């Protein structure tokens, strides 16, 4: 455990000593802020139209459905693109810079290296998502969104981002080239995002399967405020599978 924490500290330091963390956080908040502004101004406009139309129509509008849910879906797309860029350096840079030799010739278990790198990226993602808490905070201060639905949505966003982190780390462990790591990570996370699209027309067997494989489907349920064990199991299995494969990929160097 001590070794895991050492790796976590070193990885987090690498994020925050270099400009990576600040560029990613600024970019994420800039885009998120723009989405929020856009959704909120649309909401205000709808509100004024509905109030003019007839008495009580404005009650049909709620902040969760018209602002928070679309905001989270927009942020999830940004995560598809940004997470592979956060994780691309994890293994690729070590291999390129020769520090991989230092790690693997030290008395560390591969599991400790894999877990340490995963936890560091997880902490970074938590910071990233935590900072977007400003938007709901504004809504809570000036409106009355449903807190339960909001929290379920955040749990979904966190699980989605964590799965992307695990997948991104896996693709980084395959290569010493950061661009290849980022591109293959992006393809993998994007595929998880869009794999459910043909589900409606894919037939009775393939359809539900594609829908189950799609990260968006599970995520959408949680954004709507529904925490189902099936969705939790999906995300946790995806994370554990990616971590296991990463461990195998690092360990494979030791195979005869």
């Amino acid at each position, binding site marked *: 455990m*001590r070794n895991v924490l050492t790796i976590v500290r070193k990885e987090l330091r690498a994020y925050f000593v270099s400009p990576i963390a600040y560029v990613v956080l600024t970019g994420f908040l800039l885009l998120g802020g723009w989405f929020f502004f856009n959704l909120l101004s649309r909401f205000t406009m709808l509100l004024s139209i509905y109030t003019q139309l007839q008495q009580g129509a404005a009650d049909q509008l709620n902040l969760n459905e018209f602002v928070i849910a679309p905001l989270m879906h927009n942020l999830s797309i940004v995560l598809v693109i940004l997470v592979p860029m956060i994780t691309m350096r994890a293994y690729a840079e070590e291999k390129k810079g020769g520090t991989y030799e230092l790690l693997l010739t030290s*008395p560390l278990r591969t599991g400790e290296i894999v877990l340490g790198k995963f936890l560091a990226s997880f902490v970074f993602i938590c910071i990233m998502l935590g900072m977007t808490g400003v938007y709901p905070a504004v809504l809570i201060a000036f409106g009355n969104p449903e807190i339960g639905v909001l929290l379920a949505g955040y749990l979904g966003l966190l699980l989605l981002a964590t799965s992307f982190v695990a997948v991104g780390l896996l693709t980084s462990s395959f290569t010493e080239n950061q661009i290849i790591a980022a591109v293959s990570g992006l393809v993998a996370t994007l595929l998880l995002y869009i794999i459910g699209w043909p589900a409606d027309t894919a037939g009775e067997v393939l359809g539900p399967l594609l829908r189950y494989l799609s990260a968006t489907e599970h995520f959408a349920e949680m954004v709507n405020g529904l925490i189902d064990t099936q969705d939790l199991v999906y995300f946790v299995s995806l994370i554990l599978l990616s971590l296991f494969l990463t461990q195998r990929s690092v360990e494979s160097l*030791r195979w005869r």
Partner: protein
Amino acid sequence: MIDVQNLTKRYGDLTAVSDISFQAESGQILGFLGPNGSGKTTTMRIITGFMPATTGTVKVAGFDIFDESFEARKRIGYLPESPPLYNDMTVTAYLRFVAHIKGMARADIPDALDRALERCGLTEVASRVTGYLSKGYRQRVGLAQAIIHNPSVLILDEPTVGLDPQQIIGIRSLIKELAGEHTVILSTHILPEVAQVCEKVVIINAGKVVAEDMIENLAQGQTLEEVFLKAIAQEEPGAAETEGTVEEAAE
């Protein structure tokens, strides 16, 4: 202290190292010589447990590097060909990180850090970021990370490459100084370095050991250059053929 037995490493069809055996006694400095591409780095990577051998065994301080890898790795300090530095860390932060992952007790780290900095002449650059250091300093930081946990075995892959003459002298005397308490394997191209520093020499060529002896036995009036060239010439396929034809002609 280091016992290499019948080591073979194949990458697909390519045999990088074939049936290498040698030993290094405790406290000895062993010079590991060979032309470029002869399998030096591969052998060192196997000894340090970075990659497994196809066949053969390596024992470091009595522990098998494959079966008791954990114990063996604790006892090895390794400086690869290019020093394994994190370019965004300061020298102190980097060495502290290495001390941690080498399994040192937290309480021992400050002293070990000071000692490594002082021994490698890094005290004045301790708070600098490694990415901005000159090549000589980077090499010394690499050496410092290899010795910080006071390992019984040191594996140094060309430690003096790219240094200026004064730094080379410094590093050499440091290695000599370390020899008493550590067993050192030193790979190099620089033959005078071996003559000055090492007690025992292993010469490999094309993945095979072509000479292994104490330095005074090997030399016997010849310079090390002559010994080296003779040793690697024996294994050249072209040279062997010419010899064969000469012998046939004599018959």
